[in-house]
Each structure stands twice: as C-alpha cells, then as structure tokens.
C-alpha cells in the first residue's frame, strides 16, 4: 500500500507515492536522492539526519515521510543560496569544524535552529543546543568555534 504525499524540499515541490512505514530520512535519501542527510543510527540518537521541517530542526529518522505531507523542508543541499555558502557552512568550512564530515550536515542544521532563536549564543548555549548531535572526531571545540564564527558573520 502506498500513500501520496506532497512536500516542498529546498523550495521545490514533490508529489510522491510512499510506503506508510518509510522514514523521512530514507525518503529524502532513497526517493529524492538527497544523500546529504546522513543516517548514523535510526534511533534519534546521533543527530546526523537533522533537517529543518517548517522552521524547526528535526531528526528526520524520527518522522515518517507521510507525517511530512504538506510540510516545507530544508536539507543541507538547500542551505546555500545564489551560489554562496550559508554563514554556518562558511563557518564549518573556515574554522575546521569537521574532520570526517559525516555529522556536519546535521550539526549545521541543529546550529541553524539555534541561531534562529538566539543570534548571539554563548559557547555554553552552543554546546547546549548541539547536545543532540554526536561528533566522534573533533571533540567539539572547532564545531563550537564554527557556530560562533557563523553567528558573528550573520550578526
């Protein structure tokens, strides 16, 4: 059995037939081919699959694709605009906020939510906001620095 859903992803509308059990993360990756959203655990533990759903950062493995029917989604592929990186992308790039880069898309999306709510976060607030996202490479220091840099340039 398939269900028809309509979603807007990175500004483009899609109408797709999906199985009701399909996770939103798998819908993005396997149906739309947007593999920038990474899956590290499928139990909402790692945060690598974080995307923006109607303005909120959401772990896309905790939603079914059918629950996103009618929603406006932004994934890492949709963050840059007019050929320019988003300040957060710029921050992670310039401040060495990544080693392997696997957690990076989810980190950036979670940080996006933080900066929406708090354009000038302290380091403690940054660490608090990213507590749902694992990075196993960096020890987090350069990630905090990257978000701080993005906040500075966005301000």
């Amino acid at each position: 059995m398939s269900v028809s859903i309509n979603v807007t992803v990175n500004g483009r509308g899609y109408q797709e037939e999906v199985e009701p059990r399909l996770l939103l993360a798998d819908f993005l990756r396997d149906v739309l081919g947007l593999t920038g959203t990474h899956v590290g655990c499928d139990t909402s533990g790692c945060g690598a699959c974080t995307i923006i759903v109607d303005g909120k950062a959401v772990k896309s493995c905790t939603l079914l694709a059918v629950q996103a029917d009618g929603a406006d989604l932004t994934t890492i592929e949709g963050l840059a605009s007019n050929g320019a990186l988003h300040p957060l992308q710029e921050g992670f790039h310039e401040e060495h906020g990544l080693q392997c880069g696997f957690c990076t898309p989810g980190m950036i999306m979670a940080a996006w939510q933080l900066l929406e709510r708090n354009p000038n976060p302290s380091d403690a607030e940054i660490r608090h906001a990213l507590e749902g996202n694992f990075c196993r490479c960096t020890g987090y220091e350069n990630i905090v620095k990257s978000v701080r840099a993005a906040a500075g340039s966005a301000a």
Partner: protein
Amino acid sequence: MSETTTDNTNFRWIGKRPVRHDGVDKVTGRAQYGADFTLPGMLYGKALRSDCAHGIIKSIDTSAARALDGVKDVITGADLPEVSSEGQIEGEAPASVRDTAHNVIARRKVHYHGHTVAAVAATSPSVAEEALKLIKVEIEALPVVLDVMEACSPDAPLIEEHQHTNGDTGSPPSNIASTNTFEDGDLEKGFEAADVIVEHEFDSGTVHQGYIETHACMAEAKENGEITLWVSSQGHFSIRDATAQVLAIEPSRIKAIAAEIGGGFGGKTTVYLEPLAVLMAQRTGQPVKMVMSRDEVFRGTGPAPGSHTRIRMGATSDGRITAVDCDLWFEAGGYPGSAVGAAMMALIAPYEVQNFRIVGYDVLVNKPKSHAYRAPGAPNAAHASEVVIDEICEQIGMDPLEFRLKNAAKKGTKAPYGPVFPEIGMVETVQAAIDHPHYQAPLGANQGRGVASGFWMNGGGDATAHLSVLPDGKVTLVTGRPDIGGSRAGHAMVAAEELQIDVDDVRPSIGDTDSIGYNGVTGGSSTAYSAAVAVYEAAHKLIADAKRRAAEIWEVKADDVEWRDGAAHLKAGVNGTEAPLSLADLAGKASQTGGPLAADAAVNAKGAAPALGTHICDVEVDPDTGKVDVIRYTVVQDAGRALHKSYVEGQMQGGAVQGIGWALNEEYLFDDNGVMENAGFLDYRMPVALDLPMIDTVVVEVPNPRHPYGIRGVGENAIVQPLAAVANAIYDAVGVRLYEVPMSPPKVLKALQDAKATRNVAANGNGAAAQPAREPEPVTAR
C-alpha cells in the same frame, strides 16, 4: 592553544592552517559516503545475525525467504569457499583469512551474538528485512563465556575446540590463543631495590570506536568477472585484498573505489559486508548495496577489547622506577587477535625501566571479534601503569609530573619491546605540562586534578602519490589512503611546499585501486606521515623534470636552472636573460619537451617515530550522584612537526574526548547469555558537546629525524592517557581510587559509599588496617 617548537625552519605551508579542499563538498551534502551510491537495478542486501552467542549451526532453511516476492538471493556460509588458515589478511589488525572469512559469515559455529549466519538481496530494504524473518536457523546452544578470566580457566567452554595456546598441540585446548612475554633485567633485584611497591588489578569494559557512519558498501559484478566495489573504509586496497581472499578470487578482478568515510578510528580496516555484497552481486548479476544499522555495528563489528590487568610496580623513595611486573588478559572476542601485543609495547614505554616482565594473553570470549581502536590496547595498559604511578607518587610524596620527568625515556633508551628510541618527546611534553598554567590553577570543592602520560609507536608503510600539471599550471595530486581527518589537505600542503605554489593550486583526491599504486590503510597514525614521504618524492621528481625541460627550452645545462616560487629560473651567474618558466608555461610546452608533465612516487616509509603525550585533567565529582564532570582538560603532545596545525590539534582533542568517554561512560553491557543490552546510541553513551569543556592543546615539536619535515604520527596518542588521568583526578577530588572503567556514576557513588563505610568502621575503632579515605570536601587550592 600553544606550541613549543624546537626547530625554527621556515616553511611556507607546513604547520599552517589552510582550509580543506574537500570542505565545500562536506558542508553542502555533496560528499558521497559509503551509503550514498546507487545504480540502476540495485538490490538491497541485509545480513541475518545469530540470536545465540555460542552454538553449533544445525540447519538453515532459506526456502521461505527465497519464495518471497522481491527476494533475488539468499546466501549462507555454505555458499562461500572454505579458505585456508595459513593466509594472513594484512591491515591494522592482521588476522588469518580463515578467521576473517568465518567472522564475515559463520560456517559450522556461531561465536558471538550478532554473528552473521545468512544474507539476502532484495528489491527493497523492507523486502530484505521481511526475508530475514523467514529464514529458519537452528542452533544447538553451547555454554557462553564472556569474562576474560573465566575464559582462561581450564574448564571454560571452548570457543575453538582445536585451539592450543601458541599452537602448542602438546598442551590441552584453550581459549588462550596466544601468550607472549617481554622481559629484561632482574625483576627480583628490582623489587628488592624498591622502597615502595604498589600492586593493583584493573578492568576495562568492551568499548566501540563509535564512528557515526555505519559500515556501507555497494558491489557491481560484470559479465566478464570484473567487480567494482564502492566502499567506506580506512583502506580500499586492503578491503579489495581481503574481499578477494575471503572469496578466493584474484584481487585484480576487483576495483575498489574509496567513498568518503564517516569516521573509522581503526574499526574500518577489515571486511564485514563487502564479500557478501560481492558474492550476491555475482550471483544475481545486479548491483547490491549493503548498509548496517547502528545495532548491527555494535553487535557485529569489532569493538576494542575489554581487559583485565594485574600490575606491580616498585620505586625508590627518591622516585626511580625499579621494577614492573604485569600481566594483561585481553578479550579477542570470537576469534583470535586482540590488541594485547600493542598494549604490552605501550605499557611502560614512556619510561626508562631496567627490570620488567610483561606478559600478554590473547583470549577468546563469546563477544564480537575485537578490532583496532585508536592506539589499540594502549589505553587499557596505560590505565594500569599511570594510576599505579600516581599512587607511588602519593606514597613517596613526589609531584607526579616530576616523577615522570625523572623516569622519562629519551633518545637512546631501549624500548621494552626491543629497539632503541630515536629522538622522542617525553621529557619535552612533561616539561610543557609542568609549565602550563593549568597545572597550577586553583581547584574548588569536590574538584581534583590528575595527570597521565602515554606512548604510541606510530606506523608508516606503503604509499603512492601521483602529481600531474594541468594546462593552467595547477596540479592534481592523487594519493590512495582514504582521508578521514584532513590528510588530503595535508598532502596538498606538502606538494605546495615543495613546488613552491599556492596550496589552493593543488587539487588533491583519493584514487581507486586501479588508478594508483598500492597504499596501506589509514591507520596506525601512518597516513599523514607516510603519504607525505611519497608526495615529497613525487614533487621533487616533478621539479627535476621541469628543470630539465626548462634547460632544453633555454638550451642550457639542467644544472643552470633552479626551482623557485613555482617556476624554473636561470641561476644567478648563468649567461642569458630568459624569463622564468612557470608550471603553466612548461605545461604549454609539454608535448615539445617530452610529453605530459607528471610524476609518481611509490614508497615504503620506514622512518616512523613514536609519539609521546602528557595530559592534565580536572574533574568535579558530585558526591550525591557519583557523576563526574571533566571541567578542564589539557593535551600536550609531541607531533614531531605539525603538518596542518588545526588538524593536529583536532586529532589531539578528538582522541582525548574518546578517552574521556571510555573513562566515564562507555561500555558494552551484556546479559548472561552474551546479548548486548545497550546496542544503540541512546544507551551506549558517547560524549556530546554539553559534557565537555574546551579541550586545550599544546603541540610540542621534537622533529622526527627520519622525515623530511620531522613529522610524527599524531592521530592515536591522545586516547591513551584519559582513562588514568580521569581516575587520578577523581582520587584527587574525593579520595577514592577506582580501578575499573568506565567510572560511571553508580560505580563512583558505590566507591564513595564504601569509603564512607570504611571511615565509619575506622572511627568506631574496628578498622585500624583500613585505608583511610577522605570525606568529600573542599579541596584546597595548590
């Protein structure tokens, strides 16, 4: 962040912090990791894993699974060739081909819960999962042995019935696969010379590397027998070879393409899914993709071994180590091959010790086959040696860093495993720790400070590099070791340094196994070091060729030409007024001067030199809950010469944080039947940003004399110290010693309560012999 440099060579790029070349792909979602590849007609493969931790496979009925609509293939161990136990699979943790093959898919027996027993390929992931449920596996359960010491007992259930320790068939079969001893001096005399002797037993749980990307690959088999394998690994050459060995086919039939890798830390240096995906692709004629779930990663891939260690150390009252006697029992898991050998090497290597005996045991237990994890074995070993040193220092009243300085190994010291050390940075890192403001900073109530030093030997090995000049004078650089932490940028810096061009004018990439010569794995802290040797040599070949061409164009001798600022110049004093020829100029004349301008180098880099590091850790202990917070942490490490300063610091910070996780929270929890009870990120608790302070770094540079720039391996060392540094800090904070990691809240709380009970008994006059433990209370500033 600070740095201590012992050599002031001026570099244009080495030691700087350029932005990584692969960064844009990684912040925009373009970078393709193991699970990101698809091909038309691709099938989804899934593995069926044993729900029994030890047993004999009586039957596997796949008929119902085969009958399911959408299922294209079902395989069991019987579908793979039987391979000899003689062959070795190389890599970071060498293992026999037979053991590796049987670990990939069980044959007669299952050795641990989660051991693969069958695999399916189907048209969708959900059909594949449905099919797994239809496979009927009958297993005759055998008694399970999980504890490493119980497994050593003569009456323990045998995991390999025909295994004799060290292959000695004269001895009865045993779970102890091998034992080895390092010894020197006179142990008895050493302990006689000691004024203080401390002996303890230490335990570490089984922990996982915890890379965020799960294992993933995709295989395509062509009609002519050629295979293409897209794989996330730490070494696609060794994955190619291991896959070929397990399937008993020629390695030349496989082209392995390195995906971006989402972390490995030693865990992605062997095969799990790859032979299954290739076999099912061959049998179906359709591409097969396999991606593990996190649950499968925990249950079915190689964690770092749990261990039990007994150590006895003697020292004089003026702070000289006189003797060390140590036994290390390591869990190999379901097949032989733990990291006990490396643990033995690292145990007391930071120190000059005349009299020692170190015995290691590699022991089979019904847990996943252990595999390499960042400085394999060394954290378990240093946990024991560095806590015992702390206790000795307390007893003789000596500052623990002064003690380490006094006993420091240096150039000329004979390593416990044989060779004599070249220049090493033990003295320098300890001194830098002593000099760091952190070491003197005041502490508050229930806070304490601990230190620990650690050793890692570092590796080198095979590396190949290819440089090619583009029409506009920019340069492509192809190497063949997967880039996990920024090695592409580091190697581009080497090319830019030697060619004297801008680092952004080098375009680095990782070649597939058909497009470049052999390369070892990105492991053993070897890649920045060894591939840098290859890139350096290739760059100098390219320069020599460019100079020859310029000389030909100018009709002068090659000796009249020099390379400067990315161009050939006529040497001063040579007659003529030729304008310099840049790489772009030379590329434009390449066809007339001998063909395309390119150079290769293939090396076996032998001059790796050890890394030493010293950590300072402050903790605060909550006496009501036993929760320990790391509140300040400083990593001091000898990098030889930092290639990319930010990436060196990043390795130090990342390694320390993995060690902190191991020290405080991480461990596999098994039930009595050998079933892991916390096989997910919600229950296997790795550190998040909120758990940690800023990890400060001090990069010490004692150049490795056997490398053009002095580079040492950097990646692994910083995970060695935290177990002991945190334990020593907890003792300093609340006066209780813990000898088992993780030091999770329940264990710390129990230790505090036990200490309190001991104090109360002592207060009542019944516990004169009991060790006095301090009441948790404000600790005065130093």
